[in-house]
């Protein structure tokens, strides 16, 4: 829902790094976004295409890696992925334990860019 301000941030960071590297053009931007985020990737690209017109990043492809939501079992310590939007119950695949704590799935960062 807030893809626009998010995309503005991405573009700002991308351009800063591209300029520092004296790049001629940005061709790819790799992002890592956790499954817990409700960001819609398609809109990121649309806004990016719009906002980047006339900049070094015009035409760059956004590549999004969605990282799974990870919980850790409080009984045996095993970490495991959970489809939080589908499952009603969270059970450890290793020991069957039902007590698990949230570890990760909220990532939201720019990994790297490819420039020429």
């Amino acid at each position: 829902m807030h893809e626009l301000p998010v995309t503005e941030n991405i573009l700002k960071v991308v351009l800063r790094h591209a300029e520092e590297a004296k790049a001629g053009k940005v061709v790819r931007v790799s992002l890592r976004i956790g499954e817990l985020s409700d960001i819609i990737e398609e809109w990121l690209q649309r806004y990016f295409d719009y906002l980047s017109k006339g900049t070094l990043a015009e035409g760059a492809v956004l590549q999004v890696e969605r990282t799974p939501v990870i919980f850790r079992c409080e009984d045996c310590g095993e970490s495991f992925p959970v489809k939080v939007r589908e499952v009603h119950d969270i059970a450890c695949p290793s020991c069957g334990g039902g007590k698990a704590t949230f570890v990760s799935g909220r990532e939201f960062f720019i990994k790297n860019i490819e420039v020429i």
Partner: protein
Amino acid sequence: MADIRLIEIKEEIFADNDKLAGEIRERLREKEVFMLNLMASPGGGKTSLIVQTLRGMKDHFRTAVIEGDIDSIVDAEKVAEEGIPAVQLRTGGACHLDAVMVNMALQEMNFDDLDLIIIENIGNLVCPAEFDTGAVRNVMILSVPEGDDKPLKYPLMFTVCDAIVVNKVDYLAIADFDMAALKQRVLKLNPKIKIFEVSCKTGEGIPAWIKWLRNEITAFKKSA
């Protein structure tokens, strides 16, 4: 063909917001001002809970409210009726409050005269969860008519909140709402979360909520 170079970035997309939120929290800590970020769907009961909370708190803590919700002119008036200062944020159709907006509101407040600031965030369960406002505690209101399956639809919100207030329990008798299932789902996502069952209409459950909040504020002031 020109060579493609890979430039490592590894920067958080919300780094600027998170940094400012951290600075806000630091300033609040220095001045021993507790800030509560209240989030819910439109109509979930944010303004109603704020009014109930002010009635239970204002004799003990000097309080101010940041109004960010869409129909917030009305909301700010309701808060003002309680004799509490409210700073109105003009958010112009934004879907969440971020640290920059909260910081603007804070500039109109004197921290030396305050113990508690309550933020009424914009009515939305998706976006506010993603933006740190600088608050010390995050609380979500879930109202009974919205259903017990919200944790499945908005899991992020449940992982960032310290407490859930299930509001409008006066509807429980006529609603198809499974409180036990809700609690189970919420606690799976966040075992440390506190869950309160209240009705802002009848006042049921409000004292337990107020008691928790007062304890949180007292503990915060001691540790600050």
